[in-house]
């Protein structure tokens, strides 16, 4: 036991001696949360548009003014001919061109119908779709006011309730996701790298001939990162709570237990990768592609798993972060208990056992 404690102390010294790693270790979660919280936004705001107004009458001027007053759009340029459109799109700043036909107000008055053309730069299809529907919405409101004394004979009004997240805050998505991301990075990647580093620099041999047993060596390597990961998890939850007003509706104890489970899982994954790689470079590439990208993209962090092709859904099913994110969302934001998330928990436990077994088999006590 004394040897073991000494070993853990050595590992801690390794980490604390290096301020750069420490800064990144604790700066990473904070920066990620802030980036995701403030930068990743999907709403439309200040989109640059161009107007091609062929009639310049009160109606077209009024609609233009309404578009610009909405806060969604900003006028970049008034165009004078159709030939300019192609160039202005190619220059890249303008996302939408609105074209009013000749004699717009007159036609609206006399024929009760006037044509409005909306051209959107759909090289970013999602924004294009939103920009067009916002524009249509603004024109529709104008029309409704114009036809004030006309009413639809029947009307069905859906009363929509956004459950668990009334304001549709995006923080509800990314705080659990960032937690999974940071824990994976810190736990899995860092352990994996420290172990491989000992191999690469040859100091692993020194450790293997010491009175420490292999299991103790691994446990000693892992202990500091468990502590660091726990601190990180707490920091993230606190940031979510205080900065983004994220509720914690479920049991804190369960939340913490699940987090510890995931940290252990990530560590065992890191150990498994370390038994498979000879150099840090290889370990790094494996972790980048087996850990980072799946956590970002195959876990439902940013893109919902249900919308993916079926094969990818199967792939997602073997990604630990997917289950962790589901658990955290349910427990933290919905307030579910273990009864509702036992399946996910069981999957995590099963994965943990598999990883540990594989690493135990593959861990080499002897030198080649």
């Amino acid at each position: 036991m004394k040897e073991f404690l000494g070993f853990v102390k050595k590992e801690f010294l390794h980490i604390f001696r290096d301020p750069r790693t420490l800064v990144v270790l604790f700066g990473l979660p904070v920066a990620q949360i802030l980036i995701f919280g403030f930068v990743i936004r999907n709403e439309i705001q200040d989109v640059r548009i161009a107007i091609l107004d062929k009639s310049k009458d009160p109606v077209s001027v009024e609609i233009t003014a309404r578009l610009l007053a909405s806060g969604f759009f900003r006028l970049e340029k008034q165009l004078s001919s159709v030939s300019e459109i192609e160039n202005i799109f190619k220059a890249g700043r303008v996302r939408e061109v609105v074209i009013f036909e000749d004699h717009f107000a007159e036609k609206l008055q006399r024929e009760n119908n006037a044509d409005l053309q909306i051209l959107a730069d759909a090289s970013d299809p999602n924004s294009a779709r939103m920009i067009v529907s916002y524009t249509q919405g603004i024109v529709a409101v104008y029309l409704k006011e114009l036809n004030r004394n006309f009413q639809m004979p029947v009307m069905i009004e859906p009363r929509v309730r956004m459950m668990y997240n009334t304001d549709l805050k995006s923080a509800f998505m990314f705080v659990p996701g960032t937690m999974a991301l940071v824990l994976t990075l810190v736990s899995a990647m860092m352990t994996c790298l420290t172990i491989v580093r000992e191999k690469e620099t040859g100091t692993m041999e020194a450790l293997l001939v010491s009175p420490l047993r292999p299991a103790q060596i691994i446990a000693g390597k892992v202990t500091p990162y468990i502590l660091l990961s726990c601190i990180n998890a707490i920091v993230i939850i606190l940031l979510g709570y205080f900065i983004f007003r994220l509720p914690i509706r479920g049991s804190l104890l369960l939340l913490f237990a699940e987090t510890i489970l995931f940290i252990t899982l990530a560590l065992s994954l890191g150990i498994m990768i370390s038994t498979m790689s000879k150099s840090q470079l290889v370990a790094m590439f494996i972790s980048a592609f087996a850990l980072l990208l799946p956590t970002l993209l195959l876990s439902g962090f940013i893109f919902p798993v249900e919308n993916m092709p079926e094969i990818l859904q199967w792939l997602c099913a073997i990604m630990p972060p997917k289950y962790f994110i589901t658990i955290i969302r349910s427990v933290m934001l919905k307030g579910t208990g273990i009864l509702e998330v036992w399946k996910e928990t069981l999957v995590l436990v099963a994965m943990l056992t598999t990883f540990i077994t594989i690493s135990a088999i593959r861990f080499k006590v002897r030198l080649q």
Partner: protein
Amino acid sequence: MRTIRYIIQKEFRQIFRNKTMLPMIFVLPFIQLIILVNAATMDMKNINMILVDKDLSTLSRRLGDKFSQSPFFTLLKSGFSTEEAEEKMFRNTTDMILVIPDGFEQQLYREGKADLQVQVDAINGMTAGLINAYTTQVINTFTYELVSTSGGNALINHHPKNITMEYSFWYNSELKFKYYMVPGILAILLTIIGMFLASLNLVREKEMGTIEQINVTPIRKYQFIIGKLVPFWIIALFELAFGLTLGKLLFNIPIEGSLLLLFAYAALYLVAVLGMGLLISTLSQTQQQAQFLNFFVLVTFVMMSGIFTPAESMPHWAQNLNYVNPMAYFMRVIRMILLKGSGFRDILGDFVAIFIMAIAMTSLATWRYRKIA
């Protein structure tokens, strides 16, 4: 010049000797393009819903049918109990609950107005917004059909004013999200390869101690940096060509603009990225440190570059930060050239910016690199 050539030769030998690196370089783009492009989709395919029909009238049944016929909704179950449905939402088995209240049909016919209750699981705000939009759409079509079939001639007699809104989506008329993602993924690929290889390589020499051997040779600082840069620069450009071919074959992405222009820009961009990688490596002592810095810089840059969400909708301070984010420039330029066919004049400003960054990064890296242990 000869010195630089020898360093380059040495670097290439080291890269090709490593059995794991070569497959990585080829397999990576495959995996990234196939998996990521398919995973990154915002198209809603399947909204699970539960219908609670308390009215049980002809009209409520017709409305229910409208939802189950819609390709977006999957009707899991219809029942009478709102509590039971809410319990299901609590357990994450349904995304949406539609409650048709008792007396819906009667009220609609008598007063011309009736309410429906819709509950959406809004943990994911983005999908909740989409679900809401699709629901409103179905209900609106239903109302419209109701009006036009049940002698709602008021519409025709009254002559309301109308503005016909025609819209067209340029450059991607079918709104394929893949066309948007492939260039983005290619940009990430290029950056990862460039930055990781460059930063880890130099640190590795430090960690192994071989850097000291180079330090005692007459090789000049700039020669060493150039010698380290060129091989990765070539590999990364090759990677771009490979990735583009894959993108064309697998996803048939449009290539509207000049490939020459794209490669010219990528070449310049890579100098900036590689310079940054080298800078990171001069700042770190171990590969672990370098790697952590890499991830930190990379994830921040990627997220801010506008790969998933438009850079224009970011707050102003983030947009200002993007002036020094090389990735934001490349992300924009690769999409402009590939999807819209923008020419040199359209991206002149981006060229100047990336040129300045390339010079700044490489000079910083050269300056920070010390020939002492």
